[in-house]
């Protein structure tokens, strides 16, 4: 099955086929489920069903150049969806990352009690599926089952409309923060633990406070990990789908084209506009890829300067 090297006195003789054999399952699956779908999406985005040959012509797939892309970027529904996504992302990403950074730094403070309990509890929602997280929070938002509104009512305050047109952004952002904060905190915390202790000791000898150590030493050294969590959050925000879809059945404020991805899938399957949907998918995928690569460039330059 595999190449067997004959016993040899020379070192570093490596068989030629072995690495390819080990890689073959990954390559086959990568091509089948990533490269081919991508190529197919790009193909679909350049064709459309058009009537050819006059009034009695049949509808057939025709190459239409960038028509689908022009239609996508001038579609007010997609632009509105991107605007809503931005609104949501501007709430959820800074709170998630800021909270994750704060809690990671606090976990690293000497003298904190119950740190293990807090760490595990905060990480726990990572294991809860988006659908379930939305279910839990959704019921807590629903006026008829909300414990928050029950408490507000008990002290004579007006109820909050969590699922109204304005409240729904906060409602969705809260679900995203709840689900994502712990994972990011753990990434930052493990990065903090890998910083050699001697670095702090010198600062402590110089009389630096914990705050100064956090601000001047820990945060700068965390930059690579922070960029990593930022990229993950960006990818996660763009891919927000199960949460708004589940909350949609509890709130009238969420339309079927609320976020770009919801529109993509509605257009592809409910409206049968696969070409338009493919063009939008390609735009979204390329947009994310370009932003991630640019961020990684910054990251590489930073780490290069440090080392």
């Amino acid at each position, binding site marked *: 099955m595999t190449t067997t090297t004959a016993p040899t006195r020379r070192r570093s003789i490596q068989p030629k086929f072995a690495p390819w054999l080990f890689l073959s399952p990954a390559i086959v699956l990568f091509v089948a489920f990533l490269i081919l*779908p991508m190529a197919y999406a790009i193909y679909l985005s350049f064709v459309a069903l058009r009537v050819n040959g006059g009034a009695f012509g049949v509808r057939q797939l025709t190459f239409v150049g960038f028509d689908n892309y022009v239609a996508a970027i001038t579609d007010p529904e997609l632009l509105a969806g991107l605007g809503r996504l931005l609104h949501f992302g501007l709430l959820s990403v800074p709170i998630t990352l800021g909270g994750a950074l704060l809690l990671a730094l606090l976990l690293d403070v000497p003298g904190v009690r119950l740190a293990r309990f807090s760490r595990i509890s905060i990480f726990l929602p990572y294991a809860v599926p988006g*659908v379930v997280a939305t279910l839990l929070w959704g019921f807590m938002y629903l006026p008829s089952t909300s414990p928050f509104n029950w408490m507000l009512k008990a002290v004579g305050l007006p109820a909050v409309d969590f699922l109204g047109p304005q409240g729904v952004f906060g409602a969705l952002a809260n679900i995203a923060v709840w689900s994502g904060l712990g994972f990011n905190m753990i990434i930052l915390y493990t990065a903090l633990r890998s910083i050699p202790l001697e670095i702090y000791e010198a600062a402590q000898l110089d009389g630096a406070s914990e705050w100064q150590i956090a601000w001047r030493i820990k945060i700068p050294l965390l930059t690579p990990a922070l960029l990593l969590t930022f990229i993950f959050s960006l990818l996660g925000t763009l891919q927000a789908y199960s949460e708004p879809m589940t909350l949609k059945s509890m709130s009238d404020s969420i339309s079927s084209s609320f976020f770009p991805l919801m529109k993509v899938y509605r257009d592809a399957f409910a409206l049968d506009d696969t070409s338009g949907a493919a063009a939008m998918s390609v735009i979204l995928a390329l947009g994310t890829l370009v932003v991630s690569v640019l961020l990684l460039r910054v990251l590489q330059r930073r780490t290069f300067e440090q080392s």
Partner: protein
Amino acid sequence: MRSRKAFKALPTIILLVAAAYMLFPILWVVMASTKTTGELFSTFSLAPGTGFIDNLVSLSTFEGGKFWMWSLNSLIYSGGGALLSTLVSAMAGYALARFVFRGRNVLFTVLFAGVLLPGITLAIPQYFLVAAAGISNTHWAVLLPSIISPFGVYLATIYAQGAVPADTMEAARIDGASELRIFRSVALPMMVPGLVTVFMLQFIGIWNNFLLPFMMLSDESKFPLTTGLYLLVNRGTGTPALYTYAIMGALLATIPLVILMVVLQRYWKLDLLSGGLKG
């Protein structure tokens, strides 16, 4: 120098408040699962109800035990998918980390682009290709795309670079061991701690996946828990009784993973994630 420090009150309190925020929905669902439909809408959310056993029974018997079928499907997709994914990632990561061959750098770059690609945007063409292959609406339609994880391969590569010494492989080669045997008996055992992390990330990732099964499957008996519970809430808009099913389902879908996380958290090597990008 950092141990034996005085008790820090404020950081401790902030962390405990954050922990309470994270645990609150779990507490809520435990309480809500004990309520009858009437109690759910009339009593204070955090007060216990009287319907726990009834709710459990009605969910279990819902449409001939569909809920347990979904749970079983979730286990098959997550367990099987994560296991195969870990193996595929381990083999590929080992090859990328420990062999020098033409095209290695190109492969690694393409793979890394795969990590940054929002996979969810590929679901439409994936669906068409799977349908063209005639396996849509089967377990394979969900299982096969879940096996390949560029991030898993990437993590396995990083881990293999640190954990499998080239000298040990060289020694095994000189002893006349076949490449497959070197991988199985020498490299694989050394990679186990890192692979546990890859397995758990994949398990949770597949368990939480909604869009892929949502697109690939129309047969409700093949649904995993995520799409199944979505179905319940979606229908619940018309039938409030289904809400108690959805709440009980949410509880039962959460508890096993929470236990798994608490038990296995010491085996996680999440420093892989933060350390990974430096290499």
